């Protein structure tokens, strides 16, 4: 079946460094959502991307949807300790199929 893979699985960065997680699908995605889950917490919706090549920004976060709608990325500029958590992409097919997630650790 269709899978949505995320890389890397883990990322450790120094505070102030940038961070990027990538979400890749074997087939075309209709749209994609991004969620953040803090340690011990629950997923929190960040954004939904629908259009091919779409780019959206939320302060230090930049989200992109690939031209072929088979991949997406989340980039964080100048990470802060508050960015710690696991970032999941989710493929919307009338049910949400989550990616494998990228766990981000930020060292002060």
């Amino acid at each position, binding site marked *: 079946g269709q899978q949505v893979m995320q890389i890397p699985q883990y990322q450790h960065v120094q505070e102030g460094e940038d961070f990027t997680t990538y979400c890749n699908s074997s087939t075309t995605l209709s749209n994609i959502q991004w969620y953040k889950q803090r340690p011990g917490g629950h997923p929190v*919706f960040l954004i939904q991307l629908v259009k091919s090549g779409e780019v959206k920004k939320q302060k230090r976060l930049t989200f992109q949807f690939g031209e072929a709608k088979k991949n997406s990325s989340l980039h964080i500029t100048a990470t802060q300790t508050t960015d710690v958590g696991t970032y999941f992409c989710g493929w919307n097919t009338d049910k949400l199929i989550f990616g494998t997630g990228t766990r981000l650790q930020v060292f002060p």
Partner: protein
Amino acid sequence: DAGVTQSPTHLIKTRGQQVTLRCSPKSGHDTVSWYQQALGQGPQFIFQYYEEEERQRGNFPDRFSGHQFPNYSSELNVNALLLGDSALYLCASSLGQGANEQYFGPGTRLTVT
């Protein structure tokens, strides 16, 4: 404005037992989805309820069943518990059928011994 609430917070059960988890959606939402999240894994979709009917189902056995009430709240029932059912069970609410923006509750941590 209350967000999504779930009860209980934690639960310990024995293999073979049955469990019922409860969820109240965010005010104004009419759709409830349930997810299972094993430690270190992403949430796995169990099923979704809309207009009191199961509309979508993930790859989970019939031991997992649910219900949605007229006030949009929902229950997840798991029969004949297995050790592998130990996980965080998340409820998410949204507006309208489908996987629109999901608002997650804090989850119920189920431990099967």
